[in-house]
């Protein structure tokens, strides 16, 4: 009996497999060609001394990469950027989402405004950032009005702050949308029960909202970190190929290695980045699973 069911199951899977392949074929061909194969190729290049007929050199490229000062600089800057901007954007978007979830006026319109920057192409507002952060710009004018010395925003360590500001401005709407969805999925009878028991506002926020929002928060954090690795577009458009040292990020490094045809360093850096991202994602998913078990 059991074997018969099993055999039938195998048959179903086989028949499905053939059809699935038909549905998948167009996507698979393109995906393999433009994503998966490059991925694997990149890894092999990182172990060779030359792209064309290279010989296997093991981890030499990695050693050289780790010794390179500009790579270290790029790593440090990227980590600093992520370390500051991610907690900041999460705190701010959570706060805004909590307020938007209250019964205030014009909720819909306000949400529309907060999400708007997400759709505005960065290239179209570069001028505004220049006007704001230029040596002769608006911000410095305000500083001088308050009798504070001007700051060279784009050519000092402040450039990191400018970049964080632009990143938060651009991406905060994405997090707000996710947080609002999370908030609205918390059953309202939890709050009603708490009301009957006479719980105050703050305990409710802490023991109901924050607990049930944790899975969302995990996901938002993960996405924010991944997006923070992708700020190249902003930096490039505002500050060009070789921006001030402080905002020279991993992506800059990789882009410039490409331009100078240093393929070994580039592929080694790419592989390290992939490893880092995979490690991060699995760690986050692991912690999240533990948390879910804990809640149940």
């Amino acid at each position, binding site marked *: 009996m059991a074997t018969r069911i099993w055999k039938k199951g195998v048959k179903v*899977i086989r028949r499905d497999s053939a059809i699935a392949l038909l549905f998948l074929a167009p996507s698979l061909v393109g995906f393999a060609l433009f994503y998966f194969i490059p991925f694997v190729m990149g890894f092999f290049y990182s172990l060779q001394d030359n792209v064309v007929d290279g010989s296997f050199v093991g981890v030499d490229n990695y050693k050289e990469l780790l010794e390179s000062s500009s790579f270290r600089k790029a790593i440090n800057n990227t980590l600093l950027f992520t370390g500051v901007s991610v907690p900041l954007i999460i705190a701010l978007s959570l706060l805004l989402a909590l307020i938007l979830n209250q019964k205030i006026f014009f909720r819909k319109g306000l949400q529309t405004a907060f999400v708007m920057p997400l759709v505005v192409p960065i290239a179209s507002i570069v001028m505004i950032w220049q006007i704001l952060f230029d040596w002769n710009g608006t911000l410095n004018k305000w500083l001088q009005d308050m009798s504070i010395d001007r700051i060279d925003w784009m050519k000092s360590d402040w450039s990191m702050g400018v970049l964080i500001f632009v990143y938060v401005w651009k991406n905060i709407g994405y997090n707000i949308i996710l947080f609002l969805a999370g908030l609205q999925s918390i059953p309202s009878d939890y709050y009603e029960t708490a009301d009957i028991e006479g719980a105050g506002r703050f305990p409710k926020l802490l023991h109901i909202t924050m607990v049930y929002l944790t899975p969302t928060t995990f996901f938002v954090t993960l996405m924010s970190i991944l997006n923070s690795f992708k700020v190249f577009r902003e930096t490039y458009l505002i500050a060009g190929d070789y921006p001030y040292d402080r905002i020279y990020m991993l992506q800059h490094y990789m882009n410039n290695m490409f331009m100078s045809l240093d393929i070994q360093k580039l592929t080694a850096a790419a592989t390290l980045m992939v490893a880092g*991202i995979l490690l991060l994602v699995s760690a986050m998913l692991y912690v999240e699973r533990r948390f879910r078990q804990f809640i149940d």
Partner: protein
Amino acid sequence: MRIVGKISLTVLMGIIALLMLFPILFTVSNSFMSEGEIAYNYQLIGKMIDVEAGGADGFINVKLIPDWLSFKQYSEVLIQTPVFLHKYWNSIFIVVPIIAGQVLVASLAAYAFAKLRFKGRDGLFLIYIMTMLMPFQVTLVPNYIIVEKLGLMNTSSALILPGIFSAFGVFMLRQFMFHIPSSYIEAAKIDGAGHFRIFYSIIVPLIGPGIAALVVLLFVDNWNMVEQPLIFLQDTFKQPLSLYLSRINEGARGVAFAASALYMAPMVLLYLYAESYFVEGIQLSGIKG
């Protein structure tokens, strides 16, 4: 909530919302300035040395409302210089094929991932997602070699083809298809429908909102494309608006605001028109399946 608290929270949020919208409002209002006024107001951008040499120690003159309403920038951009419209067309010609192609390819693949059982399905899907998380630079070199080998270098296909096959659409439409009850499909099977029949007469009509959301998200993402054309499309004649604008900011500042306003307009209008799809798309692709 008490009415006072409600009003003050609304006001506070209103102020933040205005700050968020400021760059957009500023661009639009400044696009109605004459070139002369722009040159006068913003002449000090990037001039630092002057101050140290004891030169004019001034500030950029930021104006939200132009002195005179002028359509000169628009006529310059739209009528007198054909370059802008040409780049606009370049952008459209890159984005539209990507959207059409990805909707077709991804909806087929998503059906297999969501509703068919086959060996290695979950593993394959994991690989799809993985590539979605990586920054563009990760596969830069091999991508370059493949594009070169296929003879696509310096053609818009070098942007269009990878755009069509990105995993995002598969991921998102799969999420939407999960919500279609499998009993619909079983019922259709009993009535003798094959999988392709099921796909186009049951699945496609039901994931309409998902496709709409995908179209909006892809439009926004690809209209913004910067990294790919920078590498694969060095021929400035073929480049999309995004790269053109980053240069116009330096050279032809007088028309930059109108050019920027025209560049962001389709995105802003599309978003206002299809906001619910946009939001739903982000929520559904944000909740893991």
